């Protein structure tokens, strides 16, 4: 036990330094805050689905400033916020001086029972302070701002209002006032990541400062559990009683937070510890298939915490990223104290939540080909459009040159113990003319891929049908016969990007 180290760990909450003191390692940030008497943040689900625990955390922007980032406090261990700044609904305003977000919500009937409200306030405030947010009042196009608000609030559930007044409140918000302290705070840099060691009788939490230190910890501690955004581990702790004895946080390692080009620009290396929100921003539209995934991947609250490496590392068969990365032919750069190695993602998964990654290895980066397929689509089948888990996910990447399919890769989620490639379908379609007939032939094969099961999300029959239909739907939306389209938005959140003549493949 090292009481000195424990007493050093602290979080700045609403401007006040709050020592972690004797807080157990597996105490969530939510319980820590509530223990301080800040009971605005609530536990609604304890698994990052409802957002009632949302708080604002200062995170670095690529430009060097601070971004107020909304995170689920129920998923993070309090120790993970050592040295960080947190703002809760209580810190944003009070009765006589409501924050603009709070005022709009209150006046417009945005709260009924009020239990989800502090979480909505924080998610809404994060978007309110986003630098490149365009407020409705300053643009003629309301649909894009509306879309942005929908995504910003997609991780918050309300059971009372039906959301209309909440969305109205959001859309009524103008830019922050000139003297807004949290707006001004954005111009200073975010708190740096600090080395943390918290020891308690329920375990040890360690945050190394750099990659070498992290790898050394892995070498030393065979029982070490690696934590990045804690969107998976947090659920294990809260719902399944998991209490790992030794937790190593790697989400702030600078070596794992870079986006760079490699091999003469043929590849884009995406640092494994970048959050999905950060990856989306950093890629800036360079990977159209992933741009289809982001809005359908969980919620903004989760994407703000979950990392790209963590999503691949956890090897869930129903993760949404893996099918897309398989279709893109991504590779993983694994690192250990012994060196680095590169593994194609298609060879990475070995069984249910099993991979080739050795215990002492970390995913350093996800390596994406810079050249993009001509036609891509991501079809997520779920009950709910936002913040749901796929019953089936299909990622399609197809190149068509002069009417012939020259290359095809299809990644599937939810139909086997691991994310898989639809290899038989790929063989069926490759080299064929891009016609309704060959698409139909391939769709029949695709519907037979994997070993889908019946569960609470969908029947096996529906899953299989959706596999085949994903290709038919892609064909209809990009093919040469009459185009299927509705005048406005597509029925699903899928929005295929088509490039029929293959220019995208050049």
């Amino acid at each position, binding site marked *: 036990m090292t009481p000195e180290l424990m007493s050093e760990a602290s979080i700045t909450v609403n401007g006040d330094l709050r020592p972690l003191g004797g807080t157990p390692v597996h105490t969530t940030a939510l319980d820590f805050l*509530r223990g301080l008497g*800040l*009971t*605005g943040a*609530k536990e*609604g*689900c*304890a*698994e990052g*689905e*409802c957002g009632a625990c949302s708080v604002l955390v200062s995170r670095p922007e690529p430009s060097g400033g601070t971004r107020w980032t909304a995170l689920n406090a129920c998923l993070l261990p309090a120790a993970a916020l050592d040295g960080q700044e947190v703002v*809760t*609904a209580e810190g944003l*305003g009070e*009765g006589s001086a*409501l*924050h603009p977000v*709070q*005022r709009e919500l*209150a006046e417009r*009937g945005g*709260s*009924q*029972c*009020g*239990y989800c409200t*502090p979480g909505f*306030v924080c998610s809404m405030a994060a978007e309110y302070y986003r630098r490149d947010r365009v407020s409705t009042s300053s643009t003629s196009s309301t649909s894009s701002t509306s879309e942005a608000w*929908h995504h910003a*609030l*997609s991780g*918050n*559930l309300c*059971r*009372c*209002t*039906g*959301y*209309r007044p*909440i969305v109205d409140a959001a859309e009524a918000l103008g830019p922050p006032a000139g003297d807004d302290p949290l707006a001004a705070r954005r111009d200073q840099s975010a708190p740096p990541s600090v080395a943390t060691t918290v020891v308690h009788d329920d375990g040890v939490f360690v945050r190394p400062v750099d990659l070498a230190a992290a790898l050394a910890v892995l070498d030393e501690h065979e029982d070490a559990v690696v934590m990045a955004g804690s969107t998976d581990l947090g659920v294990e702790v809260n*719902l399944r*009683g998991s209490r790992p004895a030794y937790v190593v946080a790697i989400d702030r390692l600078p070596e794992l937070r870079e986006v760079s080009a490699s091999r003469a620009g043929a590849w884009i290396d995406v640092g494994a510890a970048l959050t999905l929100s950060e990856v989306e921003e950093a890629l800036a539209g360079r990977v159209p298939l992933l741009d289809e995934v982001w809005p359908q991947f969980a919620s903004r609250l989760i994407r703000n915490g979950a990392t790209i490496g963590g999503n691949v590392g956890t090897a869930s068969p129903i993760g949404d990223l893996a099918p897309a990365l398989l279709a893109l032919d991504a590779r993983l750069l694994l690192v250990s104290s012994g060196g680095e190695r590169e593994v194609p993602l298609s060879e990475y998964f070995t069984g249910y939540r099993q991979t080739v990654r050795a215990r002492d290895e970390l995913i350093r980066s996800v390596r994406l080909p810079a050249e993009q397929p001509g036609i891509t689509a991501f079809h997520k*089948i779920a*009950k*709910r*459009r*936002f913040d749901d*888990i796929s019953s089936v996910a299909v990622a399609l990447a197809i190149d068509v040159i002069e009417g012939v399919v020259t290359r095809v890769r299809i990644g599937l989620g939810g139909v086997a113990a691991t994310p898989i490639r639809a290899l038989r379908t790929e063989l069926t379609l490759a080299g064929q003319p891009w016609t309704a007939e060959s698409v139909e032939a391939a769709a029949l094969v695709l519907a037979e891929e994997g070993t889908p099961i019946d*569960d*609470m999300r969908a029947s096996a029959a529906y899953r299989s*049908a959706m596999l085949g239909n*994903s290709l038919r*739907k892609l064909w*209809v939306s990009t093919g040469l016969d*009459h185009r*299927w389209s*509705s005048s406005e938005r597509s*029925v*699903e*959140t899928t929005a295929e990007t088509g490039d029929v003549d293959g220019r995208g493949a050049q």
Partner: protein
Amino acid sequence: MTSLSQRPGGAVVGTEMEHESAALHVTGRALYTDDLVGRTTHVLHAFPVQAPYAHARVTAVRADAAYDVPGVVRVLTAGDVPGLNDAGVKHDEPLFPDEVMYHGHAVVWVLGDTLEAARRGAKAIEVDYEPLPALVTIREAIAAESFQGGSPTVERGDVEWAFENAAHVFSGVTEMAGQEHFYLETHASLALVDEGGQVFVQCSTQHPTETQEIVAHVLGRQSHEVTVQCLRMGGGFGGKEMQPHGYAAIAALGATITGRPVRLRLPRQQDITMTGKRHGFHAEWRVGFDEDGRLLALDGTITSGGGWSLDLSEPVLARALCHIDNAYWIPHVRVHGRIAKTHITSQTAFRGFGGPQGMLVIEDALGRCAPLLGLDPAELRRRNFYVDGQDTPYGQPVRHPERMVAAWEQVRATGDVDARRAEIDAFNARSAHSKRALAMTPVKFGISFNFTAFNQGGALVHVYKDGSVLINHGGTEMGQGLHTKMLQVAATALGLPLARVRLAPTRTDKVPNTSATAASAGADLNGAAVKDACEQILARLETVRAGRDIAWDDLVREAYYARVQLWAAGFYRTEGLHWDAAAMRGSPFKYFAYGACAAEVEVDGFTGAYRLRRVDIVHDVGDSLSPLVDLGQVEGGFVQGTGWLTLEDLRWDASDGPHRGRLATQSASTYKLPSLSEMPEDFRVAFLDKAHEDGAVYGSKAVGEPPLMLAFAVREALREAAGAFGPPGVSVELDSPATPEAVYWAIERVRRSGHEGS
């Protein structure tokens, strides 16, 4: 206009007001039961041992190992109960069971210094079970003839004659899933022992009086030794009407045994696996029409899935039977009701309380029959509306049926329904892979508790010497804005600005013997009681005033010195109700609330996924007490109803595997309620004009439940859109909930029947 309904000039009721706690909500300063834990010292935390069987006998409990876990203070078992080992009013819910009746049933509870200690203690306890056969689904219960409670029949006319003389007779089976309340705040209680052994329980409960009674009978005490307070709830929706009692009793039992405050808060997974939900229903029906598509007869049996105990299943069934007609005149009716007994959670009240399930049966029948009758479904519905002078099947005159027509026609006009349906036809003609539809459905919902005795309300109004006013009433606040309305009622009745009136939390030692805040009746009952109390005080003040023009504060001060009582207890009972529960006849409702909805959807033929493109609603709230609150109830109720009908998918393991009876959708990641993405893209709500209700406080109407059933329009639109993938005239069967998968299979059936027909 009655004196109850008459609204004075300049009334505070009717003005648009934000929720009375809005500023507390948005700043995180509103306190809920579990927020009090950190403000209380030496609190113990309770954690259950949940059984892993749907049905089993408990043969042994070995709790000693729990005491080896540091921080474990006490294990509570049946032997600790000084009073009655029961958590319900029907005495069929053992608090500590020796027979496990559903998967997740709490067998014993552990108290620990920390929640972590209690959790570890619970894990250390060994329980031996002898598994018993279990019934999971309603169909299984029907096959096994496993029923509970009464099996009433609502009957009128000569059904057999009617079917013989009907031009068209159709029959079918309709099954609908239940619904998890998913209040964002799970069940929570904090119990402590006061001076003199008085037990004080803070509880998230819609029914503090009944919580008090159950706590008292478990502790073997009288009601006056137990006080229950509810600050506010983070949502209730019926789920905290009867379900909180047992958990409050556990906390109170722990507090009396240990002398320390005990907190019991169910984490989501416990809440969802242990507490009751909306009843799923199974219905077999036969319906007869005349040549013009007018309903002639309805015959059938509806079976609710009651779960393991009776709970509120009987009144829920009664309300289902009383709403089987929805807004339609059906001359000959014979519908039997019964309650299946199964080994799942004890299903309970949920917004609508059986009404939605009863109405779904007739709406499903009309939706399926319309194509077979060759009629537009909206026209079929409109043609069968009640007209003045007609009675419901249980014999209550249908007052103001013209308001149903007015709401319907207003939706049709302001929703531009006819023109949009023409556009939809054109869209469908050119779109092979996606189809749109616009459906309209009505709502007629009876207001009052079916059980006449519950239709009473109480209030306590204090005027202090400085002229400020404090009100208490028997209703609880769960987000529905009841307290906001009560403040407005008091300010209106006293003729004071709102700032002079405050409201104190609901407590059983302020207003006793209250009814549950339920049946949409909170504002009707408690509002009239608050008004009564205010008027008693005003009458006394008038004698002091003696005709002078004198300011309120001065009048109050004078009254005090004149030794005039400045507080009053108000009371109200709804007049004119009578109900014979055995015969299922009478006039159980004070009035009906009406509404109409038009919903437009677009369905993707590849996946069954859909968008809710536009929703138009005209709803009858009487003369609104608080328009912003009422708008929130209409919108929120509609979206919650849409969730029940299209998205929320409770799945129990009905296999013969080792987890039989386990709820598969037991977390927020598997049980999906509507998120922002399910909101209608274009959502227009209006209140019905000229809707004054004579029988209720300040001319208002109850609004909590009826809007939920406006969502039938969404389900019917999905049915019609699925039908548009096939030839006309095909009856479309659609599962409930109509998830994308269910819609997809409906489309596939339509396509197949199209092929067969060609």
